[in-house]
């Protein structure tokens, strides 16, 4: 028997080639009873390793190789829980001290401080002993190690990789072991699970050192021996020192720490004396309920009591209070906050102000959020305005629970698609051109089974699989998939701990200043029972908040989102007409094409609308039946009479996850917890055994209720197919609320809403140019960037009693924020008299910035008496940039009137698009309208008048190219002209034929036939050609 107690996984980030699961599986195949993974300065793979090992019945030991300040790596194993806590604290200390991501080093004082409970191996060629032996200081090294970790906690590690130098070192190490009376332990210094993965290891080494494989030389492994070896192989290798093998088992038995005993405690919320967390929560909930339910209905009361009882039983009062506390902080600071996801199923969350949806009146299922049976922590996601306000909420949590008490969860960035292709391409020495071609291949490859499609794809791209390098590339590409590349930061997940979080998991600084992340991702945290709060940034929340402030300032009205008028006619008119550019969740091309069919008339319709354009309803073929029933084209029928109450509001078509849970509860007598278990069984991973167990249970339940035969099959089919993609109703309702608010603000306060949208870019589906064009079509006027009037962000100006949007300086591309602020500061002191005055007073202004300001017309107002045009400004600004020297000082005519001609319309448009990305003038297509008319092109707004089957020509600037996975290769194109947006669909064969034109042209002319169904017009393309236009390209939203 042999235990491998020094292995590195791919979580050593480019210094290990196998995932922890792969190592555990291989160990189990080789009948290795225990395995220890010691990754470089982290335990990021430890949870996955623990879970995989548990499943396979092998003992998982946790440790890490810690970088010492001398440059070597000290392998440490956690013997006890205290040892693990010390390891976490040691890593945290050196990582936070380094302050810079990826850099850290421990001193011997650090090792001494956290040595308790840890066992130290002397390591491989990168270890402390090898380092010391190279310097003839072996004895000093061993003395230092024994003094630091204790005599009985040092093991002299011996590796045998058939290497002369290593063996010479081993002999010296054996002598030292004898001299100091220390145990010798065998290990294989594992870097990969199997021999073949050495190639991946070598490739990763090249990525790490940024060298080509042909130039890596001795950086690569000398041979392929550093893989997991069986007890037999290891015993043979160490036949001369059998005690080294035996020592592995002795040490294995000493290492008592496992992740079953992590010691994590969720923080307790501080409550006033005489209160418990449960009693305090109860009070807060009833306070909130009374203000939100006016009055609290008996049903709501029952639901709240039920939820409180479950929360009390599960001991989760502290969690709810902590989330409530964050929401209270945001409300106090005027930060918009709204819970999303399954939390909206909870009446307690609604009462605490965490969510905005009343689950009682909407009949939402609490167990989708929390159930006694599941034994899992609930998950509350809070949407906050993206940007600085969200950061304030995050920093509040850090401050409240201490730097070592709260942290963001990590996001493990893994090799996928293009990143893998690019890195490997560089390693194998492909040139830039080949790299670009290889990277382009990626989205088209059928990665699940690359062998099927790769040769053809490669040949089409001009690569032959007969070329050994290309073949190797493909092998490595497949092998490297899902291997961790580096540790990032999750977008908003925070974990909080009672006491010190750094004893549970190491913390490290994120790239972003002020942020600290744990070394586990959100799934690891969930697996370890660590509760998480997601503080997510939502651009639309920021827009809503900014809009409300602008409305208060410029309209003198105090708008409260919670009290927006319901069922506003203008809102529903806009939704029914698919006039939704800029609106939350309902603005995409797909949403726009379904809105006139669904014709939302009330809030719940909007909830359905948000949920229906999703892969679930589309793949599950629920969308069209629902829309047909909605339009009265198909009778409403239910799968079974007993399910009517569940499916009634969605016209007999299951659309939401909650519905399938309730279907299982009604049809098969599942408890709420069992139903949730069913949803998970048919979720993304879909393990066969679990699925068939649950299906069997469903059938048994339905048989008992005498639902049999075809109906039973139909119910089973709809539940099982839908579980994968279904959208939670509570989530849809939360989003629908925001969608409604955005529609309301756009319909009633267009200037404020548009200004807020322009100030929170990038976000949403459309570019600022399209947002401006749309607002102009709705009658809003814009004013250009003007150095004498513009603020940093866009603002509202009143002219002749009418609100107009003034573009902000932030729209001037290339103008640095610090320069813009310097301009504003100077302007606040005194207005600028001339370009020369501007240049003199704002010394930060660079040549390119002043040129760009002149080019976009921002300096036109600096000499109103001379009626400056953009070229005049350019002429003047060039002089301001080069003050005349003594030679020219006497010349009178250097400051003469500009001899330059004003820009033409097209030049001005191009200057706008190039300099700001937007234009407030005419749409580029309007300059071609005459030509378009002569070609018989129908403008976007004229399309509705055409009937299905009519031949048509459309033309415009391409603003969207989409080829969704659910559309079987169809390509959807949106073309914008001065009258609106026209949509075209391109069949796969036509796309192949015109691929170059479609992808490469900014302006297109499409000949096709009209499909006008329910007022939704799409042109089925038959021919596509590029329009030769002098105008710049407009931004396009492509292939997302």
């Amino acid at each position: 028997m042999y235990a491998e107690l020094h292995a590195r996984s791919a979580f050593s980030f480019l210094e290990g080639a196998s995932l922890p699961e792969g190592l555990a599986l291989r160990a189990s195949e080789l009948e290795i009873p225990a395995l220890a993974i010691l990754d470089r300065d982290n335990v990021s793979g430890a949870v996955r390793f623990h879970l995989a090992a548990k499943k396979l019945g092998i003992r998982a030991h946790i440790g890490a190789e810690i970088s010492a300040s001398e440059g070597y790596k000290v392998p440490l194993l956690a013997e006890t829980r205290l040892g693990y806590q010390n390891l976490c604290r040691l890593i945290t200390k050196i990582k936070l001290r380094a302050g810079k991501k990826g850099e850290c080093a421990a001193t011997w004082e650090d090792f001494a401080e956290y040595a308790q409970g840890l066992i130290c191996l002397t390591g491989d060629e990168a270890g402390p002993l090898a380092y010391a032996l190279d310097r003839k200081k072996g004895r000093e090294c061993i003395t230092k190690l024994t003094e630091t970790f204790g005599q009985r906690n040092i093991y002299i590690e011996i590796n045998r990789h058939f290497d002369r130098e290593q063996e010479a070192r081993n002999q010296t190490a054996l002598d030292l072991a004898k001299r100091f009376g220390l145990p010798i332990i065998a290990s294989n210094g594992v870097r990969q699970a199997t021999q073949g993965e050495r190639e991946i290891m070598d490739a990763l080494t090249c990525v790490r050192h940024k060298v080509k494989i042909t130039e890596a030389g001795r950086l690569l492994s000398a041979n392929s021996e550093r893989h997991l070896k069986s007890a037999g192989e290891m015993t043979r290798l160490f036949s001369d020192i059998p005690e080294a093998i035996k020592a592995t088992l002795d040490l294995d038995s000493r290492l008592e720490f496992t992740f079953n005993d992590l010691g994590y405690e969720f923080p307790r919320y501080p409550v006033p004396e005489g209160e418990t967390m449960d009693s305090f929560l109860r009070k807060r909930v009833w306070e909130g309920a009374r203000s939100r339910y006016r009055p609290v209905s008996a049903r709501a009361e029952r639901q709240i009591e039920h939820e409180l009882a479950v929360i009390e039983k599960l001991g989760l009062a502290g969690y709810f209070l902590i989330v409530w506390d964050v929401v209270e902080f945001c409300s106090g600071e005027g930060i918009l906050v709204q819970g999303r996801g399954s939390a909206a199923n909870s009446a307690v969350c609604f009462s605490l102000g965490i969510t905005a949806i009343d689950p009682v009146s909407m009949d939402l299922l609490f167990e989708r959020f929390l159930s006694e049976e599941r034994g899992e922590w609930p998950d509350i996601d809070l949407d906050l305005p993206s940007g600085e306000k969200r950061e304030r909420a995050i920093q509040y949590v850090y401050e409240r629970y201490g730097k070592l008490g709260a942290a963001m969860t990590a996001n493990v960035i893994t090799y996928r698609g293009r990143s893998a292709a690019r890195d490997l391409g560089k390693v194998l020495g492909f040139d830039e051109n080949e790299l670009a071609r290889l990277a382009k291949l990626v989205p088209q490859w059928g990665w699940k089974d690359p062998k099927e499609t790769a040769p053809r794809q490669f040949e089409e791209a001009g690569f032959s699989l007969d070329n050994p390098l290309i073949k190797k590339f493909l092998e490595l590409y497949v092998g490297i998939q899902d291997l961790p590349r580096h540790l990032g930061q999750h977008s908003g997940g925070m974990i909080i701990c009672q006491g010190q979080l750094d004893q549970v998991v190491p913390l490290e600084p994120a790239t972003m200043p002020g942020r600290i992340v744990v070394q586990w991702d959100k799934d690891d945290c969930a697996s370890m029972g660590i509760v998480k709060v997601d503080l997510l940034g939502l651009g639309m929340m920021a827009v809503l908040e900014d809009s409300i402030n602008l409305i208060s300032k410029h309209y003198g009205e105090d708008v409260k989102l919670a009290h927006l008028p319901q069922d506003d006619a203008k809102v529903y008119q806009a939704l029914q007409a698919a006039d939704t550019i800029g609106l939350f969740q309902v603005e995409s091309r797909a949403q726009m094409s379904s809105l006139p069919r669904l014709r939302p008339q009330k809030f719940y319709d909007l909830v359905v609308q948000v949920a229906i354009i999703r892969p679930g309803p589309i793949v599950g073929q629920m969308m069209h039946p629902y829309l047909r029933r909605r339009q009265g084209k198909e009778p409403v029928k239910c799968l079974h009479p007993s399910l009517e109450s569940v499916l009634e509001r969605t016209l007999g078509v299951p659309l939401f996850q909650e519905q399938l849970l309730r279907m299982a509860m009604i049809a098969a007598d599942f408890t709420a917890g069992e139903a949730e278990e069913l949803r998970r069984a048919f979720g993304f991973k879909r393990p066969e055994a679990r699925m068939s167990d649950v299906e069997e249970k469903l059938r048994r339940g339905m048989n008992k209720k005498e639902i049999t035969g075809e109906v039973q099959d139909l119910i089973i089919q709809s539940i099982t197919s839908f579980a994968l993609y279904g959208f939670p109703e509570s989530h849809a309702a939360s989003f629908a609320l925001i969608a409604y608010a955005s529609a309301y603000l756009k319909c009633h306060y267009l200037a404020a809403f548009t200004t807020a949208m322009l100030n929170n870019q990038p976000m949403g589906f459309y570019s600022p140019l399209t947002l401006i064009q749309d607002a102009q079509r709705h009658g809003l006027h814009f004013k250009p960037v003007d150095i004498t009037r513009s603020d940093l962000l866009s603002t509202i100006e009143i002219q002749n009693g009418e609100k107009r949007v003034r573009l902000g300086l932030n729209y001037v591309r290339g103008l640095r924020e610090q320069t813009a602020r310097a301009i504003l500061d100077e302007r606040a002191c005194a207005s600028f008299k001339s370009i020369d005055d501007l240049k003199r007073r704002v010394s930060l202004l660079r040549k390119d910035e002043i040129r760009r300001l002149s080019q976009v017309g921002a300096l036109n107002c600096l000499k109103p008496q001379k009626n400056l045009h953009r070229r005049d400004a350019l002429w003047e600004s060039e002089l301001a940039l080069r003050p005349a020297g003594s030679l020219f000082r006497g010349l009178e005519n250097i400051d003469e009137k500009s001899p330059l001609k004003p820009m033409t319309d097209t030049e001005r448009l191009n200057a706008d698009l190039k300099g700001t990305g937007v234009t407030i003038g005419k749409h580029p297509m309007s300059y071609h309208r005459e030509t378009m008319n002569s070609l018989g092109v129908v403008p976007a707004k004229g399309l509705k008048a055409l009937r299905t089957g009519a031949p048509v020509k459309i033309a415009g600037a391409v603003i969207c190219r989409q080829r969704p996975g659910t559309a079987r290769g169809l390509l959807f194109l949106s073309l914008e002209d001065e009258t609106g947006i026209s949509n075209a669909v391109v069949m796969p064969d036509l796309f192949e034929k015109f691929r170059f034109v479609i992808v490469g042209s900014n302006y297109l002319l499409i000949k096709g036939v009209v499909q006008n169904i329910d007022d939704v017009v799409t042109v089925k393309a038959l021919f596509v050609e590029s329009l030769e236009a002098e105008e710049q390209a407009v931004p396009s939203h492509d292939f997302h």
Partner: protein
Amino acid sequence: MYACVYASTLAEPSRLDECARLFAPSFEKTDSNTVVFEIGGLEVLYPRIEEIPRAIRKLLAASKISANIAIALSPEAAIIAARHFAGTTIISGVTGKAFENLSVKALPLSSEISEAFDLWGVHTFRDLAELPETGIVARLGHKALGLQEIARGLSRRPLLMEKADEVFEDRVELDEAIELLEPLLFVLGRSLGDLCKKLRTCGRATVGIDLKLELEDGSVFERNIRFPFPFEQSRTLLKLINLDLNAHSPPAPIVALTLRLISSLPRRVQEGLLTPLSPEPDKLEVTLARIRALVGEENLGTPQLLNTHRPDTFLLQPLEVRRGLRAPTPTHDAGRPKLAFRFFRPALQADVYLWLDRPQRVRASGIRSKIIAASGPWRASGGWWTSVPWDRDEWDVELANGNLYRLCREADGSWKIEGAYD
């Protein structure tokens, strides 16, 4: 007046120069496709100006060169006209009108000036010509003024003349064919003497010799000898030719020879006061040539170890003698074997008898013995990304007679004795 010839595609740039040389003793080679020369004085041969481009074109046609030809008052105007107007263009006066619609991109613009012109809407020569001079200078400097002068047709600059390379070449036609090396060297010696004298007169030296021997059977035998240092001594050069011809003899008697020296600047070395003396370069080169003649060209050079785990992988770099360099101090390396190792080149093919996967006996040319101790295997592999990956095991063995050898088993299972430990 100036003529410019611009050939948009050109197989042999030297043909264009040859044409230019026939019309003017010196000319400007603006780029590989463009030549400009003065045509003043040609009126004696060609009384009407139109005849000049006609004559040039005729000559070009003979060389199968198709080109634009332009004649103008200034070199710049001629160049621009030749590059942008097809066929023949003659601009007898100021170019203003002729060029006014040309894009400013035809001018040699810096990126900064190009960006400024773009922003100003200055697209053509006329746009540029119309701008006030002081305004331009004040904003974009004198360079932009120069561009405006070109646009206005007022640019006046001298030609930047191309100076023809001195040729150090001698051809000797022999009355009788030479069969032996000695008389050949006698002839070569005389030629070399003359050429080296010419070299020194021009302040030049040579870094190579191209020797073309025309043989009695009608074939040509060529040798191209290159040196790491410039030489100017005919005696050394003759010795080097001698050694080279010794190693590579012509297959038939010689009837004519052409000797061409590749000229370069002479070598100038300031010796340091404390720099140890090293061999004179010409003597060293002669010695090396002797060795080369003995061992073959491919076996002479400076070995450079390659960065790989594969043992004994090196490359022979051309020999380079650098003065004042000391041998690197060996770094202390505790793990390395303490014995010196001597590679057998080539390695000895061997038969090895194994027992329990360990070598027991070895047999090779001159070696046949029982192995009394063996340590290994020492394993290395690599090149997995190539079509010839390698994989090998090494054993250090002690034979009965006490000799220590290194055995190697390649991936194909063959055994070699790679060398011995001294």
